């Protein structure tokens, strides 16, 4: 097995999960997004989305801020610099591995 493919075994499992990868990719280009927007864009259920957001927050890849807009609760999510670096690293590993595969 070549080095680039072996490198795939070291991918960040937090980022590697498709739903979390999608969340990070969406947040990457934004200053912040609320829970409702992420629900709309990802198509996940509320419970599923909450679980993935908690996991990303535990890893330090996003921050979550809970506020109120009037009486309506609002959850604002932001990707951290650590999260951007993790996403960048993941993409680079993927590209290197894909490039090393025969045509």
């Amino acid at each position, binding site marked *: 097995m070549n080095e680039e493919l072996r490198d795939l075994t070291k991918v960040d499992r937090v980022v590697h999960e498709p739903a979390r990868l999608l969340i990070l990719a969406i947040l990457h280009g934004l200053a912040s997004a609320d829970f409702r927007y992420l629900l709309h*864009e990802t198509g996940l259920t509320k419970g599923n989305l909450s679980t993935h957001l908690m996991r990303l927050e535990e890893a330090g890849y996003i921050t979550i801020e809970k506020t109120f807009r009037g009486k309506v609760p609002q959850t604002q999510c932001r990707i951290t610099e650590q999260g951007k670096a993790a996403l960048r690293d993941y993409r680079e590993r993927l590209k290197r591995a894909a490039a090393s595969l025969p045509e």
Partner: protein
Amino acid sequence: MDDRAIDRAMRRPQRYWYQDGVAEIGTGILFLLIALLFFAEASGLVPPSFSAIGLIVVVFFGVQVGRRVLREIKAHVTYPRTGQVRYPEAPRYRRKIATAVLVAVITGAVVAVSIKRTLPLSWIPLLDGLLIGGFLFYLGHRLSLGRFYLLAAASAGVGALIALADRGDIAGSAAYFGAMGALLVVSGGVALLGYLRQPVPPEEQ
């Protein structure tokens, strides 16, 4: 998820700004104001070359005011339905440079055509149509919004038709911006109606 899919996901927030059609309606209204300006000069209601200065003022203030108005409309219509996003602010110096470049390009184009008359004046609407159509095509490609391809084709087509009608630069530009302004308002309106018909995700607990 392959890298192209990740790239597409990263562009989805940019697409969100255009999804509800509100930005298109705003741009359409700006185009109609520009058309009014050119129409006023073509009809002799204002002095010659008034539109050159007026254009800079309308575009500059139109963009500044329009951006604030759009944000307010989105805060009341879009964000309560499909969620709120905040886009990163470009650094202040970059925004000033972009505004200065836009003003310089518009001024330069108007001066070059007025003084040198290197192009037959009837070609100006065609030039407008191709430049704006090119930008719309780029947006359609970047954001995967099919209706922008149609608007790009319409822009080129309208510009060509008006150029062929040989109405001159001012009257021709009034016709072009009037037609495209109306098309953008209609296109944005249809997008907004479609957006408002979508089911609304539940409130977060």
